[in-house]
Every structure is written in C-alpha cells, then in structure tokens.
C-alpha cells in the first residue's frame, strides 16, 4: 500500500539521468561528521553515490519527518532504480523495522515505548533513527555494517539537499517580496 505525497513517478528519472557531480558529493560526504574515520575510508573505496539524484529526492520526501510507508517506498524506489543493491535494500528494510514500534509490540517492557512513537500523523525523524541505530551496529560489530552506513548516508545527503532547497526557496520568496 502506498500513501501520502511520495510518488513513484517522481523517481522515474533516477535511472536515466546522471546529472550528479561526483566530486561535489564526495567532497560533501568527506566533510560529514556523522561517520568515524574507519568507516569513512571503507566508504571512500567502495560506495558509489554517483547516480542518485538527491535534488529530485529531496523535493519529494523529508526524511526527518515522514511516515514508515514513505521511507519504505523510498527504499523500494532506490532499489528499483538500481541505486542500492539487493543487500542494501534488504538492510534498509531491517533498519526501518528496527525502529518501528510494531516490531516490538509484544515484547516491549512498560515505560520504554515512547521512543518508538511517531511525532504526529504517523511521521517521525527516520534520519535520526537510522543514525542512532548505526551506533548500535558499530558498537556490536554487526555484520552488514557497510550497507547500513551507505543507506544512512543516502538519507543524510537527501536531507542536506532538502535544507539547501528550503533555504533557496526562502531566499527566492524574500527576494520577490
């Protein structure tokens, strides 16, 4: 089931267009404070963000304030467009479930439920949830850490573009006034 504003057609151009400036995104990635040095060097060698149209994605989803269905649809579209591998798609699905109250409905001890509840209208900050889960994976030396790092970094990049877009729109509106 697909809901809300996040639509399939918005991503139809993902595969065909390759307008991203690789060096620009690599540079932005290098400046990110969200990853430690070890993870960074791994990413520099193995992860290719080149085909992802972050600007287009950022127009359609706010990863800091969206529903579970929207983030699931984003994951599916990234997979279908070839921007994440099958393993990364599978891992992203697990990261979503790992941060979803419904996963733990039968086992949650009283008083520990609040952190899973969405803010309003079923929306929550998935970027923060992914970053937080990444820390757990790093501390427990989990398998598939690289996949988690990549999908979290994709969300980080989408959010950076959303902020840029928002600032640009604000400047444009002020200029028109």
């Amino acid at each position: 089931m697909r809901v809300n504003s996040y639509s399939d057609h918005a991503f139809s151009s993902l595969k065909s267009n390759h307008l991203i400036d690789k060096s620009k995104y690599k540079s932005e990635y290098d400046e990110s404070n969200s990853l430690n040095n070890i993870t960074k060097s791994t990413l520099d060698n193995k992860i290719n963000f080149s085909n992802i149209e972050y600007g287009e994605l950022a127009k359609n989803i706010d990863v800091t304030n969206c529903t579970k269905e929207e983030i699931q649809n984003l994951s599916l579209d990234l997979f279908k467009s070839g921007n994440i591998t099958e393993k990364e798609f599978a891992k992203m699905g697990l990261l979503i479930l790992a941060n979803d109250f419904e996963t733990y409905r039968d086992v949650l001890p009283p008083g520990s439920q609040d952190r899973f509840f969405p803010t309003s209208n079923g929306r929550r900050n998935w970027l923060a949830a992914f970053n937080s889960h990444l820390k757990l994976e790093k501390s427990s030396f989990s398998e598939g850490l690289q996949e988690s790092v990549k999908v979290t970094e994709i969300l980080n990049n989408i959010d950076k573009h959303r902020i840029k877009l928002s600032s640009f729109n604000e400047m444009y509106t002020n200029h028109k006034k």
Partner: protein
Amino acid sequence: MLKKIFGIVTILGVSLGVSINSTSAASAPPLTTLEVKEVQSELGGTESITASQTTTTKDHGGSFMYITTFQKGYSSSKTATFDGTILTLIASTPVDVDGDTIVDGFLYKWNASGKQSGLFKYQATSQNSPWNTMSDTLNIQ
C-alpha cells in the same frame, strides 16, 4: 620493603580487576521470543505480520521475496525454510528493544526470491540456558 608492599598491592589490584571483569561480563540473554514480522515481494508489496496471523493476506511472489523474522535473545543456530528448502540470510541487524543501548535481539531477513507460495518456517535454538528451541510458521500465498 616498599617493593614488597607495591607487589602485594599490584597482586590485589589485578585480582580485584579480574573479579570485577568476570562479574560485569553478563552472558547473552536466552531466546524468549521468535516471530515472523514481515513479508516483502514484488507482487505483494510489504505486508506486516501480526503475532496471531497464520497466512498472508496478500498474494506474494515476483522477482524478489524476503521474509523478516524477529527474535529476542541470542541463538546458537537458526534455520529458515520455504516448503522444506533452506533459505539464505540476506541481511541482519541487532535490536535494542528497551532503549538501554544493549543488544536484546535480532532481526533477520531471509531470501525467498523465486518462490511463489508455500510454508515458511523459522526455527532457532537458544545460545544459553535453557537452550530451548523456538519456531514460527507462516503460510505465504
């Protein structure tokens, strides 16, 4: 004399350190919960599975199909099958259920791509006492 005292203090300190370490290293919690949580496929999309559910409501299949299981506690062995055929694990992640930043269990995603309908079964055996075995099944249509 001073050397002797230093030596005794060092031995005491090392002994204490060892005993503190051995008491703080808690063993992994045993398996207490095991559930099928989600089926995801090209044709059926993403379907959440409730604890009482025995059959999927959507028709699954297509180019990909993954089944996600959740377990609270650590297991020494785990197997997922689809109509008796052993499935491969495609992804896993630790989970912190109660928010204390300690791993309480795991989510596993099993690759059933190429399958259409049948019986999914997940079984795991606890890593620690009481070494119990738990299982869950789901009919996938």
